[in-house]
């Protein structure tokens, strides 16, 4: 009994490591494919448009409301201890380092990542990928690479957009709704929020963009069996991207702190 449980866990573990290895290999081929000839500029622009431009509105909207809600909670807490001049910096820190990259990553993973898995999965089951293969087109260069690169670039840009709208939301709540002075809101932001924190968030966003695009294109690329398979690939791609982003966020945070420690900067 115990042995079979042990065996089960062992097998699961081996499977997970194998799967991880395959995904890493896939991402390597995708990146290598992108930098191989020919340069797929048009495809890159298309993917860029697809990931970036079409997500503009939802990111702005979610950013705005996240800012509103977060600022309200922080206000409720800080009002009690007479620290309303810290609402601005605390919200700014939370948004730029955590909520901005994570929420943007999650939203883009669900929207663009899901669409990537569905698109590539459809191409797989309709034999379009086989057709590219026999036509002598490197599918990593043509399909996978541009999607990964476009996601790596777009996600931080969208995160910056999210940050901007979230801060706008927070400002609206603090100044327009609660009625505090605008100067109090901005008072200590530039003192506490360093530029490197913003970049830290954008760096994480780039990693999240890499992660969801690799997972989702991998799922799509390995779709098996008909339309049902495409649905499954999309579903699994989105769910594992989201989970990975949230788990990875924690480890990245530690990694970044370790890095600051190493170069002797306070975090």
């Amino acid at each position, binding site marked *: 009994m115990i042995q079979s449980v042990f065996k089960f866990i062992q097998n699961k573990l081996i499977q997970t490591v194998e799967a991880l290895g395959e995904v890493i290999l896939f991402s390597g081929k995708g990146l290598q494919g992108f930098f191989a000839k020919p340069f797929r500029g048009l495809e890159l622009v298309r993917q860029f448009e697809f990931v970036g431009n079409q997500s503009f509105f939802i990111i702005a909207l979610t950013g705005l409301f996240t800012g509103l809600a977060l600022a309200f909670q922080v206000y409720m807490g800080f009002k009690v201890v007479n620290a309303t001049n810290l609402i601005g910096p605390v919200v700014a820190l939370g948004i730029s380092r955590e909520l901005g990259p994570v929420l943007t990553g999650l939203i883009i993973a669900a929207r663009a990542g899901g669409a990537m898995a569905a698109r590539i999965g459809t191409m797989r089951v309709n034999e379009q990928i086989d057709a590219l293969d*026999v036509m002598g087109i*490197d599918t990593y260069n043509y399909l996978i690479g541009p999607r990964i690169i476009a996601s790596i670039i777009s996600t931080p840009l969208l995160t910056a957009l999210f940050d901007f709208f979230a801060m706008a939301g927070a400002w609206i709540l603090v100044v327009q709704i609660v009625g505090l002075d605008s100067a109090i809101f901005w008072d200590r932001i530039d003192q506490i929020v360093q530029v490197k924190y913003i970049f830290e968030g954008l760096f994480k966003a780039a990693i999240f963009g890499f992660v969801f695009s690799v997972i989702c294109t991998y799922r799509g690329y390995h779709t098996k069996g008909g339309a049902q398979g495409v649905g499954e690939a999309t579903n699994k791609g989105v769910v594992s991207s989201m989970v990975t982003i949230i788990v990875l966020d924690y480890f990245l945070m530690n990694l970044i702190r370790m890095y600051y420690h190493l170069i002797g900067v306070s975090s």
Partner: protein
Amino acid sequence: MTDLRTQLENKEVFATELTDIWKSFDGGNSFVIKGLDLKIPKGSLTAIIGFSGTGKSVILKHILGLHRPTKGSIKVLDHELGKMTDQELVVFRRKFGVLFQSAALFDDMTVLENVCFPLIEHTPLKQEKIIEVAQEKLMQVGLAAAHFNKLPSEISGGMQKRTGLARALALDPEIIFYDEPTTGLDPILTEMVDDLIVETHKSRPGTTSIMISHDLAAAFKIADFVAMLDAGQVLLSGPPEVFFNTDIDLVKRFVNKGMKLQ
């Protein structure tokens, strides 16, 4: 001496030579292809037939270099595929044209763009010239100009097949492959596609056509060389007559069944 001579002869005669091919997808526990030998004459219109699941598509993918055999040698147009890198295979595949079962058209491109695609990718031709060649190929397979700027979803199944064939012919391939070209089509469309295959074959002397089919009547009618697969091996191969004068029981039953269905 004799060996050398047959080798020299083979060089001219066969479009593909598969020798003792074994293929396992699960690292050697079960084999899908079990010691298969198959030589397809150059310039022939070959039909590969057999029950579903006997490995026809897997063999096709081996010839295309999409799968590598676990063991065995594959020679295509005198090149040993096993000695080529993936990169070399990518280039080599330009000698192939494939019509897929589902036509496999790129659904975000128009009919014309689909046929232009391989030309844009693989030739240095100017855009006008590319469009000219693509239009010519589409005319050859009998597609009217009125459909050139439609998306694949806006044309009928028969037109999709024609477009797929035009795309396969775009680079003037030396071998044209058809994977189950008529499976799932109605009788009228089936006849149209069969005729298209024969016409295409006849209009390109020297080109080898390899068709996978489970439509026996059509296979025997249009092919001049037939190979029957069973359980990952070639049960019998040769001109169609061979199949009607055989003692192999399974072949007899398969042929009788297939011809009766007609």
